[in-house]
């Protein structure tokens, strides 16, 4: 049988040193890692358990923003009163993610490392070709069952969809990932597949997510996460939108707008074209719907996922209009 070593890290520094070794993976909530190990995708030689490290599960919210420790549980962050008040989209994204049981186990750091649900990626025994798993082996998804695959940010090497909700909300509000001393914006933390879909995150061996920082903004305080899916609960997004809005003093003219898409792209997707088209304009339904079409500029479908190109702008428009209503 496949043996692996298990190390319970005594400190962040010890965890980082251990994780620098090839074949080593960090174990936090385990909700992704154990799942991937069972389907034969994750085959670590050693695991570094960080669940007992002190101080990494803090949730601090101040006038400058929020800092969420990597070991904070999804459920705790979703239910945190100050997160709800300052970053409703973040709380809502978490509430609509996974199931209650998973939210109670899964950590925020681990959530960012969640991998794609592409069925070809998750079945090595039947589909050996997967550039994400085995660079250069090909992509089994292209030409296959693509209903859940990405329409934005794809490449010839990979069309796997990024499935998470939280990061979609984070990217809308310019959140920053703390990797110890180094800090990376969430937008830069997630990489486009390009020719190297195996490389998903801007994290180097020996680095570990320690916290996520979300800067305060008026748009974040007035934000929402709208998730559309086949099933009402415990289901990944067919398309989702994180939207935050700030009006001028007139209560109608858009001063700041943040729009990000989930469920349609290979990474959490900031729709800046929509933001720019509406900033400075009066919020008005037809203008919002027209601008929302810019969310899927450049989208490419693979047949069964074509509906996402239709759906995503409608989700964006509904979310923006909903935020306008609460003026």
């Amino acid at each position, binding site marked *: 049988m496949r043996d692996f070593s298990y190390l319970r890290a005594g400190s962040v520094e010890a965890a980082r040193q251990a994780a620098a070794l090839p074949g080593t993976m960090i174990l936090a909530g385990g909700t992704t890692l154990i799942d991937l190990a069972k389907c034969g995708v994750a085959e670590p030689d050693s695991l570094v358990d960080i669940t007992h490290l002190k101080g990494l599960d803090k949730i601090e919210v101040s006038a400058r923003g929020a800092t969420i420790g990597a070991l904070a549980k999804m459920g705790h962050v979703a239910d945190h009163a100050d997160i709800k008040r300052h970053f409703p989209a973040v709380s809502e994204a978490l509430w609509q993610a996974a199931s209650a049981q998973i939210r109670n186990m899964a950590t925020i750091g681990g959530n960012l490392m969640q991998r794609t649900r592409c069925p070809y990626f998750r*079945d090595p025994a039947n589909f050996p070709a997967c550039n994400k798993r085995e660079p250069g082996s090909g992509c089994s998804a292209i030409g296959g069952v693509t209903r859940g695959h990405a329409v934005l940010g794809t490449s010839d090497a990979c069309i796997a969809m990024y499935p998470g909700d939280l990061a979609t909300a984070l990217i809308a509000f310019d959140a920053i990932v703390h990797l110890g001393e180094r800090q990376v914006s969430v937008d830069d933390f997630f990489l486009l597949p390009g020719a190297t879909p195996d490389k998903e995150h801007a994290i180097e061996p020996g680095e570990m997510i320690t916290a996520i920082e979300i800067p305060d903004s008026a748009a974040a305080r007035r934000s929402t996460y709208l998730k559309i899916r*086949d099933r009402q609960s415990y289901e990944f997004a067919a398309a989702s939108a994180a939207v935050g809005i700030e009006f001028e003093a007139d209560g109608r003219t858009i001063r700041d707008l943040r729009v990000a898409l989930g469920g349609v792209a290979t990474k959490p997707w900031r729709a800046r074209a929509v933001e720019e088209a509406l900033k400075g304009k009066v919020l008005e339904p037809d203008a919002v719907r027209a601008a929302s079409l810019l969310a899927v500029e450049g989208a490419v479908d693979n047949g069964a996922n074509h509906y996402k190109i239709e759906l995503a702008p409608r*989700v964006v428009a509904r979310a923006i209009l909903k935020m306008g209503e609460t003026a």
Partner: protein
Amino acid sequence: MTVHNMRHGDASDGGADAIGGRLSRVDGPAKITGSAKYAVEQQLEGLAYAVLVESTVASGKVRRIDTAEAEAAPGVLKVLTPDTIISLRTASDWFGTPPPDKPYCPLARDITFSGQHVAAVVAETFEQAVAAAALVKVSYDETPSIVDLSDSKAGDGIPIDAMTKEWGDAQAAFASAPVRICAAYNTPREYQAPMEPHGLIAHWEGDKLTVWEPSQWLDGMARTYAEWFDVPFENVRLVSPYIGGGFGSKALALSHGAVAASAARMLGRPVRLVMTRPQTFTGYGGRAATRQTVTIGADGEGIIQSIVHRGINETSMDGMWVEPLGSVTSIMYATPNFSSKQNVVRVNSVVPGAMRAPGENPSAFGIESTIDELAYEVGIDPLEIRLRNYAEQDPHAKKAWSTRQLREAFAVGAERFGWARRTPEPRSMRDGNQLIGWGVAAGTYPVRRAYGEAIVRILADGSVEVESSSIDMGQGTYTILAQTAAETVGVPADNVVVKLGDSRFPRAGVAGGSRLAGVMTGAVYKAATSALDQLVGLAISDPRSPFHALQANTLVVANGRISSPRGDGPDLSIAKLLTSVGRDHIEATGDTMPANSTAQDRYKNYTTIAMALPHTEGDYSRHSWCAHFIEVRVDEDFGTVRVSRVVSALDSGRLYNPKLAESQWKGGIIMGIGQALLEEGIVDRRHGRIVNNNLADYLVPTNADIPDIEVISVGIPDLHSSVLGGKGVGELAIVGVAPAIANAVFHATGKRVRDLPITLEKLI
């Protein structure tokens, strides 16, 4: 309760304990607390673990299986391949048809579907077996496959003449009808997806085999194991006291069971084999994909003149599964002219199997959608058109219904739902962005009848024990048999212990086709009546009995006590009476078999389905009936459909326990919501493989998808259908849910979706 005066009405007089009472599930506490031990939780000394290796191609031949690396892996005891597994005999099918005299190998050399078992690894631990199974290298000579019904190579299939139903001249009547509707309906592969995956522990002691395995049919599966291994039927013991859901999938011994029992025999050790969740999508069959064309010719008033129905379902390359698609089409509405024919198409899939209401379920999706289309075509309310075409007798068998409370179901359901407030035009009801639609559809399921036997013992302490090899997979057998014995003997249900799920007990046929409750309440009623007769007989005639001097004709047994009808004699507990007459128990076996049945008849009855009585036997046609009224909300921008209200009125005859029947009905409705909106096995057309073979990707409803469901019983006792007056419960309620939702979606959106499931991209 007097001895020979059992009531057949809707018993509300005896409280929860009596037949018809709302007794809670007696097996509930064991399941809630975790003390209920499921099949593969048995702890056996020397247990070894088997893991299956499956084909990764859909069609072809196994060229070579390289087992060297797996055999050398730590803990490995045996690698089984078609070349190394012991030879078995082919078993007869579930009709008892004598099998061809040829060997049976549960591991395949000729591959007919992706996911077929080709090898198995047995090791000291489960983890070792999993790791070694990944080291078995199988190479194939692959040949082109036929993926599914839409494959251009699939063809028209094989006509199944036995499915043909015709009367009048349907084609001519359709051609001359003033109003003509013709539409095609498709349903995808669907899976039973029981919470407890399939698995077993097989243990040989000499030539005797014990199998702990979740089973809907102990005696049928024991027969198959006995035939495979060429040992007497009595040598095989199946044990299955608890089952984590079956929905039709656990009625037959399957190839993985043959692999595990072979491994146990070869190793001389007990072997455990549990399917992975992905294997449950290919290790046995779900509901076959189906296609139907339904044409209705009617007059301007919506009165049906003709129905022409053509159906096909998929089956495997080497197995035959017929999903009877004309079953509801031929009986739901009165029509002077009718034609239904069915073909079966071979594709590279595992042979499909039984899944809740096989046949009736997809059949109802066709006819109950088409009648809705007809209603809009002629401008008549969808409920009214059903009443105008109400079948006053079985249009196919030309026999009277035993009971058919469908008109009452329509009336009660419509009233509770508020159907009269519905505005007929599509897209005429909305709430903000939500388009609201109201749909109606009817459902039906035949009363399948067979025979059963049971032992009832009255023990020294006055308690009652019931034994039967029938099973409880959550539908409530333990509970209703306790109620039957309690009421019949005259003791509280708390004093009844029901033992099920062991093939050593008195035998029972399959728990399938919604027949078990009707069969087993009848058998227990007979056995309990006989035990009570013995008890009263002893009390009257035994010289040591305190009642002997009374010279009474009969006595009353109630609440565990025995007394004279006029209250003029002793009044004592059953325990005291048994002590006084020097007996430590009374035992009676009861069965519902015809009196002249031979031992062979009995064996055939319990181990095959060949003895089941046709539902149209004699003067009557026997069916359960229901009407579903469903509200959906469709987001006009997103196309998402959510069911917001369900009112269903159902006729299952007399209910042995309304609480449990309501629960089963609701379960069927929930499963129907899944079928309508979510469930679909999705095939990769290049590989012929189901890619959403897990519970994250094969969607079934969550709590959030299910609104409050109101179910109303409109049944009356039907003594043509069963000894105690009940009709089928378990399968009925799923029938008609999908068309009611599709009809509601049409009302909401103006879009007619004829391909299940109704996913958002079909509506945006």
